């Protein structure tokens, strides 16, 4: 085939451009570690990567939500532990006070202790979440103190009002999975999450039962203490034990969800890498190949350009 002289230069320029373009793309892949950077590089891989990145960010959010709930569950657990101690002590007092050997003075001393326990319970039930500053046991009406009390002239609590509600906030901890570490202070509806202090389903009404115990102690009504208060306080103790167990179950649930979110995130990392990352070894080999081709093209071009009939005629 007859070759025009400018065909050499045109062809060489095209080849140089192509090889330079290949080298640029491959070098860019090596430098960034990414095979796909723009949608046009690989539209399907880009689409998958965007979906995977979004999913991964969501998994990270689940992990953050779980951490928030775990912190709250830990705070709740601290309150539950102290309530359990108080409940246990109240049960002991009820049992001891029923003994025939106790004098009225003994019962009055017990009543004073129960007064103290009542105040401790009110304080515990009005604990705030340290991270949000909101009340832990007010349900979703957590703007004001969940439990307010009425007192007599001596400062003893004579009545308790619950200002919260029986709802709790849910947080997303996984795909289609929500959880709550909150416990409403009271639930008198018989359905939904059990109340911490008052719960109609389990018969718990801790503060009122403590007030009743104190009143019966002051009145020396050992029969009522033995027959009614002990049984009621047992219900309260059971309810608190249930909440402790439930909190433990929740914490385990959160730990499992956190593990799942972390595993999912790692798996998504792999998928993102598979879709969009450059295989470093293959890319380096391709880059070397392109460099060799470029060098060969430059050398052969330089040699061919030097030759013509003019080199041989005088």
């Amino acid at each position, binding site marked *: 085939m*007859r070759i*025009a*002289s*400018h*065909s050499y230069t*045109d*062809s060489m320029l*095209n080849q140089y451009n192509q090889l330079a373009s290949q080298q640029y793309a491959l070098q860019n892949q*090596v430098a*960034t*570690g*990414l095979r796909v*950077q*723009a*949608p*046009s590089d690989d*539209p*399907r891989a*880009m*689409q998958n*990567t*965007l*979906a995977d*990145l*979004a999913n991964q*960010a*969501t998994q*990270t*959010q689940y992990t*953050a*939500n779980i951490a*928030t709930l775990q912190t709250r569950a830990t705070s709740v657990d601290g309150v539950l532990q102290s309530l359990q101690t108080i409940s246990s002590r109240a049960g002991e007092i009820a049992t001891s006070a029923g003994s025939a050997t106790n004098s009225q003075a003994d019962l009055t001393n017990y009543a004073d202790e129960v007064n103290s326990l009542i105040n401790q319970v009110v304080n515990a039930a009005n604990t705030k979440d340290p*991270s*949000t500053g*909101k*009340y832990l046991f007010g349900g*979703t*009406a*957590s*703007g004001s103190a969940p439990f307010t009390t009425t007192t007599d002239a001596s400062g003893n609590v004579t009545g308790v009002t619950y200002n919260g*509600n029986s*709802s709790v*906030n*849910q*947080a*997303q901890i996984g795909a289609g999975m*929500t959880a709550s570490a909150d416990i409403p202070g009271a639930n008198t509806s018989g359905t939904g999450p059990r109340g911490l202090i008052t719960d109609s389903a389990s018969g718990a009404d801790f503060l009122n039962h403590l007030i009743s115990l104190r009143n019966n102690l002051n009145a020396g009504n050992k029969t009522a203490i033995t027959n009614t208060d002990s049984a009621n306080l047992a219900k309260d103790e059971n309810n608190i034990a249930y909440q402790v167990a439930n909190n433990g179950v929740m914490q385990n649930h959160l730990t499992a969800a956190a593990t799942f979110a972390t595993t999912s*995130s790692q798996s*998504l*990392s*792999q998928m*993102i*890498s598979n879709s*969009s*990352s*450059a*295989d*470093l070894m293959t890319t380096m080999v391709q880059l070397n190949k392109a460099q060799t081709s470029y060098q060969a093209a430059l050398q052969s071009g330089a040699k061919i350009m030097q030759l*013509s*009939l003019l080199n041989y005629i005088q």
Partner: protein
Amino acid sequence: MLGLFGTLNLAARSLQTQMTGVEVAGQNLANINTPGYSRQVVNIAASPDITTTVGSEGTGAEVTGIQQIVSSLLNAQIQSQGSTSGYWNAQQTTLQNAQNGLNEFLNGSGATSSTNAAGASTTDSGLSGQLTSLFNAFSSLAASPSTSSQQAVIGAAQQLATTFNQISTQLGSARTAANMSLTSDVASANTLLSDIATLNKQIGTAQFAGGTANDLLDQREQDLENLSKLTSFTTSTGANGAVNINIGGAALVSGNTVNDTLATYDPGNGNLLVQTATGGQPVILTGGSMQGTIAARDGELATMQTNVDSLASNLVTAVNTIQNSGYNSAGGTGNTFFTGTNAATIGVNAVLVNNPSLIQISNSATNTGDSSLALQISQLATATQSGLNNQTFGDYYGTTVAGLGDALSKANTEVANQTAVTNMLTTQRGSISGVNTDEEMTNLMTFQRAYQASAQVVTTVNAMIADVLAMKV
């Protein structure tokens, strides 16, 4: 017999003939790098014989013409190819602008997300990540309804709205750039049409006198090739070899006359089209950069704009429907979350920006600590939207991005393919019409030697004439 003077004339004619050969070789070598130049060859034939008593006797050689070596078939193929290349190049440019405007790229480094094989982490720079950030901010607010979470939601929403606004502006700029490109192409085409008509006239004049107009033909061929990159057209041959040009049903050049020129017009939607300037007849373009620009602008670019607007509009409606039904932490209501209706106008309600605590995420005026609506909004991330082809926000956007990627990827492939075809055709044409240095140098030597030989004939005959004149009788 020619005799001494006849032979001298023969040698002189030969000198002129060989000189013309040298001139043509020189012309070819001079134009070796001239774009569109077709090599020329000198046609030499033996001069008419004369009849003598001993039979026919030659009278030497003479130039019968200087011929341009062209392949009409290849020229036609290159013109056709020019339209296809121009179409895809224009598509590539407009779609590249759209891709840049969307700004959805993966980065090889960043503080979050996954780690790839090279050890860098992968993040995305565009709307996708910010959409997820907004839903995640609501998720965080649901889990921990605090002031800082409320501020985070407003921050994420503002960033998302700004990105929507920027994309809308960038896509609008891409559309403006496409219109400007079309206007510029139309102006270039008009100049070429005028040049071609002028060349038709000059070629006709030159050939009418029996001459050749090789260089003018090359210029016209070059103009036709340049025009083919702008738009496809059909040609017909008129009187005196004139090329008549018809673009999309409009006969724009007839012989030496430009009947009409092209002009852009706005059909009412801001997307310029092409019509004849005087006749006002819409021109149906089928190839070239003009049609490529129009196709990309009215196709994928318009789809992008529509989809991004649709995404913004559905997001505004979905978030506002939930948020507006709720109550803020003081039990108040009445503040919408997003303002605006599309990507250009979406924004976050200034009242909420100034006071994030007014976000309405409670399901009741009394349950002021409730965050169930924030949870509902965060769950929009995985909810399909009837207004988005029953896809989630993220999936719909991902499909849009992939659609643009497909279109640009196809344009890139076509540009590469068409470049290869153009190069092949150009090389083929070069093998016929291009100048080869070695060949021309060989021709130069051939003519030079023949010239030297003819000069030797002149010298010999001259000596013979001198001998004759010196004879003494």
